[in-house]
């Protein structure tokens, strides 16, 4: 029982990080029909911005994080939208998919070539002490990660539903044309979405890198799991992506411990295939209307 509880908590903690990436992924899809195949690399990269800040520029951790925030918002938000997505939008979904695949390769190999091919230790943001609860060893870091990402997603959800800007963003996501007629600055709302995605990626990066170390190839598995989380939860729902992330985190952890460590990644994949076949709109999603 102790072991189960322990696995549950650590699964929820990593799951909540996946949820951050998955939420960004769904927001991008809603706002601009962009399927970002480089999302995993977007989560891998900001950790290296922090490392560049702290090690190359000699900043302390707080300033390094701020530096990474600014660079992430600029590169992964603004530049990504203006330089990669905007020219591609008229061509449709598939060219964007291909272009972001290429972008992922570009980011991965750039980090490998220009920073390091080795895994880099990353400073822990939270205390790494452990607690003993009912015979289960719970790391404080896991609890802190869980609280941080859940709070972030709650705040984001409140922003989207309770503020004027958030509602304008939702209107843009639901029906671009109508939103524009009603006086919403559609382009700006889409830019906000890209910036939020960049912020979420930074957050996921900073939370996950102390656990898995910062490495150029991390994006592959993170990206795959973020897609799975987004689809399992429901492609067009923030809370769906959250639930999907948590579910995948737990499934991944439990199946590795109780079924087969070698086939660990197979279980989320099978869950993905089953969900797509049985309920393509995801566990929490609503079916998108099909246009002829």
């Amino acid at each position, binding site marked *: 029982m102790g072991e189960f509880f322990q696995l549950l908590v650590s699964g929820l903690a990593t799951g909540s990080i996946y949820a951050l990436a998955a939420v960004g992924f769904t927001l991008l899809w809603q706002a601009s029909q962009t399927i970002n195949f480089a999302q995993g690399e977007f989560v891998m990269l900001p950790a290296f911005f922090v490392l560049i800040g702290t090690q190359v520029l000699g900043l302390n951790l707080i300033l390094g994080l701020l530096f990474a925030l600014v660079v992430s918002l600029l590169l992964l938000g603004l530049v990504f939208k203006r330089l990669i997505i905007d020219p591609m939008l008229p061509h449709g979904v598939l060219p964007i998919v*291909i272009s972001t695949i290429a972008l992922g390769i*570009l980011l991965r190999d750039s980090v490998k070539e220009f920073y390091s091919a080795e895994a880099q230790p990353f400073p822990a943001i939270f205390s790494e002490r452990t607690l003993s609860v009912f015979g289960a060893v719970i790391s404080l870091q896991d609890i802190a990660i869980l609280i941080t990402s859940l709070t972030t997603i709650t705040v984001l959800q409140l922003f989207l539903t309770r503020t004027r800007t958030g509602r304008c963003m939702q209107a843009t996501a639901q029906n671009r044309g109508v939103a524009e007629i009603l006086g919403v600055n559609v382009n700006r709302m889409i830019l906000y979405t890209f910036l939020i995605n960049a912020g979420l990626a930074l957050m996921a990066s900073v939370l996950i890198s102390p656990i898995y170390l910062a490495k150029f190839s991390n994006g592959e598995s993170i990206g795959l799991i973020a897609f799975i989380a987004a689809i399992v939860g429901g492609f067009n729902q923030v809370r769906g992506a959250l639930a999907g992330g948590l579910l995948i985190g737990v499934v991944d952890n439990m199946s590795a411990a109780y079924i087969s460590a070698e086939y660990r990644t197979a279980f989320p994949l099978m869950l993905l295939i089953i969900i797509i076949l049985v309920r393509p709109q995801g566990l929490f999603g609503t079916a998108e209307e099909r246009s002829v």
Partner: protein
Amino acid sequence: MRLITIIASLAVLALLVVLPFNLKNYGIYILSLWMVYSIAAMGLNLTLGYAGQVSLAQAAFLGIGAYTTALLMKAGYPFLFGFGLSAGICFCVGLILGYPALRVQHHFLAFVTLGFNALVWLVFRNEEWLTGGTYGLMGFPRPSFFGIDTTNQVAFYFFSLTIFVLLAVILWWIVRSPWGRAFQALRENPIRANSLGVDIRRMTLLAFAIGAAYGGMAGSLFAPLVEFIDPQSFQLNTSLMLLLMVIVGGSGRFLGPVIGALLVVLLPEWLRFTEGMYLIIYASLVMVLLAFCPSGLIGLYERSVAALRARPSGSRGSEKP
């Protein structure tokens, strides 16, 4: 126009026959690899370019073909048996993989096939008793036909070239046949195609199955060419590279994947002086190309030809598609 096409393809074929005699072993190996990737990419082009079904699992079929052939040849069966069986197995698996495509489209399909590729990769890596796990498989001989041994690099090249030409002709025929038109109808507008009497269920499954069989046959050639196979060669990245080959060359164009494959095989050689930068440069080129010309290199070529033609006539230059 038709005569020009025939002359041009004969000229290219003649070049491909003469070329290996002027190259070192490594160059011939690269050419053979181009043939292998071209076959896999041609199959993917049928699924993606003609029938419009996104598949990110071509590397899995390449792998299934390679492992099937390698295991059978290690057990002493002739190559052609392995080749046929690889095509058969991949055809059936492709048929099964096509089923999700009946329910979901576009990006969902991309994710299902991507998941499938990752699952197959896990099997290659974990089932050590069968696939040798991360150590891979080696020690299978190259095939020989009618007393001609293909251990020689040139002989194997001609063998791959023959199979490539055969498969290209078959695909050419499929694409020109009513089937090919049905595939394109499926891509352009499935509902309209259905109302015109195209059985979209069957065509979708077939598009997957034939594409997969081409992947399997390419894998079947890949194993004796490289003479060593491990799971690394068939991971998701390879699927993405194959997808890029099709798109960069020009998806839905017959020669698109062949040109895309040539680029992927040659670029690392040309860009050797940049050391590790090859993928960075390639990825940047892909993004720029897609932004300016989503129909790929062939589209770019057609566009520039059209622009050149339009210039002399002057006043009526607005006929661009």
